[in-house]
């Protein structure tokens, strides 16, 4: 087959971080090529360079054998590269046809340049003839099911006839199994038409279902490329390829006190469409880990345990007493503190200083009777907390937005320490946190676990496995392993990524 795209020695830096480090990538005409890798491995950076969003620092890109410069999204499209974002931006009030030709509507000659709907519908029919798929394009996009919206987005990307390369960024993340089949059908007909597809996914089982080849990224490099068949035959472990090498021992030693008092008991917790049948027991003196990929329902689970969303079924008991968490206010009162996954929007008031933020979750403690703030005492408390979490720099008057990701996380934890809770739930605690601060955060979790129950929820398997005493994996909203077992890292990874029960 002919090589349609060849990228050689691509490098890209963001400040001091090397996002891509000498990446080589080849794409053949009419193949479906999956890109795999954990968050931050470099796959999104690569496709952003390919679609003209980022400029590469060095390296060469050849399309059809001729070197090209993709300086802008328009240049990429002119070279026949189209991409569909993870959450396609469509105009809900327009029909499928109108969305496909958005910005390139056929005009009628004459006053005001009225839109020629007939010409547009004809062009849409031509598109559908090239890529046969069953869809009603006269419906408003807002009324379409997720898969039809995805198809409209793909057709929008392919509205020009000279598109040779199509990039799909996690198109199946919101689709059901049946919807997925219809998207795959479209992908196969594109393939038959000679269009090469770069396909990003987190779901490894899809790779063998649809992709001809796959390339695994790790730490900004392409580490392996296999044809799906060869990988199946030789039994290559994709999870193994995706994982970083051990990054030194940043995890504190386990204390292993399994017999502590039960802080939280969850039985059969369910939120339809997000997670179901989640049960675990959290004890004082231990860290319980839940591993789940983005979209597996872990984030929603954490919010259900904090009263942000109301579960449809199941029970939560807190220190032996059944509890229905009405809202975060209620959850905090019952001794639960959530260190949320998105600390910038959910955990912090970025424009305010450290004292404001650390005391915010317990204003009752921060004020006299009558509600007047105890300024001096609060400042002292914030100083003390800043020392405990090793805040760098310990400048309490700075707005929180001026701190690094790791230190922002420390401020959220300080906020939790100020609340003196019995149950701490950490979600994605070290996203965007450098390795040094990570060790501090893990040590803090361990310290917290001496007096409280600590639940760590993360899409980083190494993190969950390294820091927790016991672990569960959540796959598509369902727990795979039991909390009483302590699976190996690989078992946990296989459970969370592919739903394999060990």
């Amino acid at each position: 087959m002919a090589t349609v795209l060849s990228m050689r020695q691509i490098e890209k830096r963001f400040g001091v971080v090397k996002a891509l480090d000498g990446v080589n990538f080849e794409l053949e005409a009419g193949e479906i090529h999956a890109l795999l890798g954990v968050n931050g491995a470099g796959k999104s950076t690569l496709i952003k360079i390919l679609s003209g969003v980022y400029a590469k620092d060095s390296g060469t890109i050849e399309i059809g054998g001729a070197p090209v410069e993709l300086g802008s999204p328009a240049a990429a499209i002119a070279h026949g590269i189209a991409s569909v974002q993870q959450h396609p931006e469509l105009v809900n009030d327009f029909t499928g046809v109108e969305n496909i030709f958005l910005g390139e509507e056929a005009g009628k000659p004459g006053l005001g340049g009225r839109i020629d709907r007939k010409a547009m519908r004809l062009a849409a029919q031509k598109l559908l003839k090239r890529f046969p798929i069953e869809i009603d394009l006269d419906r408003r996009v807002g009324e379409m099911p997720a898969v039809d919206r995805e198809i409209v987005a793909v057709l929008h990307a392919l509205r020009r006839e000279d598109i040779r390369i199509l990039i799909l960024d996690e198109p199946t993340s919101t689709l059901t199994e049946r919807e997925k089949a219809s998207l795959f059908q479209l992908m196969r007909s594109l393939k038959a038409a000679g269009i090469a597809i770069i396909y990003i996914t987190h779901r490894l089982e899809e790779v063998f279902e649809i992709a001809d080849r796959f390339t695994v990224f790790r730490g900004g490099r392409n580490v392996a490329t296999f044809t799906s068949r060869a990988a199946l035959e030789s039994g290559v472990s994709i999870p193994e390829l995706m994982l970083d090498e051990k990054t030194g021992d940043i995890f504190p030693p386990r204390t292993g006190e399994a017999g502590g008092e039960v802080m939280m008991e969850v039985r059969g917790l369910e939120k339809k469409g997000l997670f179901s049948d989640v049960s675990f027991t959290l004890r004082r003196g231990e860290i319980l880990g839940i591993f789940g990929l983005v979209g597996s329902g872990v984030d929603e689970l954490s919010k259900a345990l904090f009263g942000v969303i109301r579960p449809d079924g199941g029970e939560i008991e807190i220190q032996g007493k059944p509890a229905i968490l009405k809202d975060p206010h209620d959850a905090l009162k019952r001794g639960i503190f959530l260190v949320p996954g998105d600390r910038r929007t959910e955990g912090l008031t970025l424009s305010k200083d450290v004292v404001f933020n650390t005391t915010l979750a317990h204003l009752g403690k921060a004020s006299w009777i009558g509600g007047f703030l105890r300024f001096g005492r609060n400042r002292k408390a914030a100083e003390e907390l800043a020392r405990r979490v090793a805040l760098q720099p310990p400048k309490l008057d700075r707005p929180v937005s001026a701190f690094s990701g790791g230190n922002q996380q420390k401020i959220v934890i300080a906020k939790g320490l100020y609340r003196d809770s019995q149950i701490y739930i950490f979600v994605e605690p070290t996203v965007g946190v450098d390795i040094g601060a990570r060790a501090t955060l893990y040590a803090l979790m361990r310290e917290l676990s001496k007096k409280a129950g600590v639940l760590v929820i993360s899409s980083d398997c190494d993190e969950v496995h390294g820091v927790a005493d016991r672990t569960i994996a959540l796959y598509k909203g369902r727990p795979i392993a039991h909390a009483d077992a302590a699976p190996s890292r690989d078992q946990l990874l296989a459970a969370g990524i592919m739903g394999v029960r060990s």
Partner: protein
Amino acid sequence: MTDTFKLPPVVLRLAAFVGLLAVIAAVFQFFAPAYLSNGNLHALLRHMSVNGLAAIGLTFVIVVRQFDLSFPGVASLGAMTLGFLLATGYSLSASIAGGVAIGLLAGIINGTAIAYLRLPDIVTTIATGGVAIGLSYFYSNGTSISENFFMSGILDLNDAKILTFDMPVVILACAAVAAGLILHASRFGRSFYATGENRVSAHFSGIRVKAYVLAAFGLCGAMACLAITLLVASSGAANVSAGSQLLMPAFAAVYLGAALFGAPSIPATLAGTLLMSAMLNGFTLLAIPYYYSDAIVSTVLIGAIAIFDPKLTATLGNLLRGRTAR
């Protein structure tokens, strides 16, 4: 980090405020020599008291990042309610309480619709303001009310003095201190700000954000009616269009103050009100018709919003820095 000596930003901002005030005073003094006379300064401060009370209420709404466009209409309704109660023979305090209660009620309706029913704030408050204006015609078919005013003692609210201060100024000062304590020295103030700055994180911190949005609208309505009470006291009659002159100065005061001091706060609002009143008073003194002075005030409002907008200031700052670098 470079540790060069810098004046604390508050001092710089205060200096900017005093400078601006001095420029305004100098200009008007030049054209109207009576501007800085004792009598006119008293008039200026009395005028400021009315706008200041309305602006203090509005500050709470702006702090939680909402808009209230209903308070002028609500204030008219409050004025007519006050006039009606006085005319019917209720005591002064009961009548004032009645007027303010109407404002509080209107604010609570606004707040409920916006915080709990999630209606859009601008449209909702335009509508409730319209309803309030309609209702204000109910008492007298639109004619102004002034019966019993002299007997009731309401005129003293404008004319009386405590020590050397006019009564309206004293009322404004008390309200400002109370509002300042709530907004800047209490847990409730923290919650108002947290709600405005990041509603999600405030919710996750256990703050009942909807209740605070409701409270902000309630305070805004009540304060608007308290403000109009002073205006009724100074004009000696309750009028269906009394509230209409509150809207622009109040918004301009809050935004001008926020632009000067970096964020909406009670001191900032007071500073903004003083600047607005200094201008409006000057225009009156120069006998510039209200439609021109309104146009100028509106221009100031747009300017203040532009300065308050962080994106715009950043662009402007970059432009200036680029120029000095070159």
